[in-house]
């Protein structure tokens, strides 16, 4: 790289906004809420992470449920991103999205159509069908997808608002297994790319941003950490650091060492 790029004001800080569907998010860390043992602990972790957008799942209403997650998010001014987790078919995903739009009064949806419970990997065929239906019904579709550059582009062309390739399977904490594919997805996308799933610890999120992702989505890495609030704060910094590093431009990798101190002018000892 020989060119230098003017840095946006406040890069890496909360003035470096990710704009999706006309909404400027104050954080590039999108949080999931699954796996938290208590609503109080979850609230603390979300606040520590600085997230501005958080996913929820849609399930049968239970009067026995203590506290309301939706109310917690509303009270903390955190925008809600309903997902279609647990859906195996396009039909179920579309129905779940419709219910979410009605219940939560948002047309944003994280589209998740999984193939089986063992891998939780996206079912590409059902995903494409569901994305098309939802876009036609006026939804802003955040498509959770495999780390497949072809599929990601296909989803974008269908009208997805953001594409969200996985780093590794949901909940595994294996990090980003195919960084090359993520870079390829980023290089060809003209919608925001959100690294979603598989994040294990802060450095994984920093890497995602260094690869050029616009944001990172994670849940388990925080909610099941030994100290969720502390890990939430760690991810806040990691995402900002990765964003800065990407903009700063990393040095090329070299085969051999390159001295950083000049060889000339050394003292000679007889």
């Amino acid at each position, binding site marked *: 790289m020989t060119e230098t790029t003017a840095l946006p004001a406040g890069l890496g800080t909360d003035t470096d906004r990710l704009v999706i569907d006309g909404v400027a998010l104050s954080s590039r860390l999108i949080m*999931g*809420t*699954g*796996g*938290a043992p208590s609503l109080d602990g*979850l609230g603390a972790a979300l606040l520590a992470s600085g997230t501005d957008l958080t*996913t*929820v*799942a*849609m*399930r*049968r*209403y239970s*009067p026995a*449920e203590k506290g*309301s*997650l*939706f*109310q917690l998010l*509303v009270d903390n001014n955190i925008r*809600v*991103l*309903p*997902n279609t*987790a*647990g859906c195996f078919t396009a039909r179920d995903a579309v*129905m779940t999205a*419709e*219910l*979410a*739009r*009605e*219940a*939560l*009064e948002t047309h944003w949806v*994280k589209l*998740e159509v999984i193939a089986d419970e063992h891998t939780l990997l996206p079912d590409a065929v059902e995903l494409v069908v569901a994305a098309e239906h939802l876009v036609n019904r006026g939804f802003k579709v955040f498509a959770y997808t495999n780390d497949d550059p072809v599929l990601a582009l296909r989803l974008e062309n269908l009208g997805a608002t953001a594409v969200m390739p996985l780093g590794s399977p949901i909940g595994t904490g294996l990090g980003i297994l195919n960084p090359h594919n993520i870079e390829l997805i980023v290089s060809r996308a003209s919608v925001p790319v959100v690294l979603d799933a598989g994040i294990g610890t802060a450095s994984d999120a920093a890497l995602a941003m260094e690869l050029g992702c616009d944001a990172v989505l994670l*849940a388990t890495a925080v909610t099941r950490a030994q100290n969720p609030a502390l890990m939430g704060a760690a991810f806040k910094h990691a995402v900002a650091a990765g964003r800065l590093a990407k903009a700063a431009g990393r040095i090329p990798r070299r085969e051999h060492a390159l001295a950083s101190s000049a060889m000339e002018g050394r003292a000679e000892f007889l």
Partner: protein
Amino acid sequence: MNITLNGKPYAVRANASVTSLVSQITGRELASNGQPADGQRLGVAVARNSEVVHRSHWHGTALAEGDDIELVTAIQGG
């Protein structure tokens, strides 16, 4: 009159509206537009026989014998 609510048998009075059912289950008082009377947000949705019933139609929708009702809300996930 018997309906199915979230997969289980449930008894309601004849011709009960969706509003009255939602109000009964959530313990919240609802205005005729389906919004909570306390001005807060309700955060639930209703599907009747696999079709979403929009909030504004709850009041005018009478339940029928054997209806299959799904009442959903946001929980932790994703």
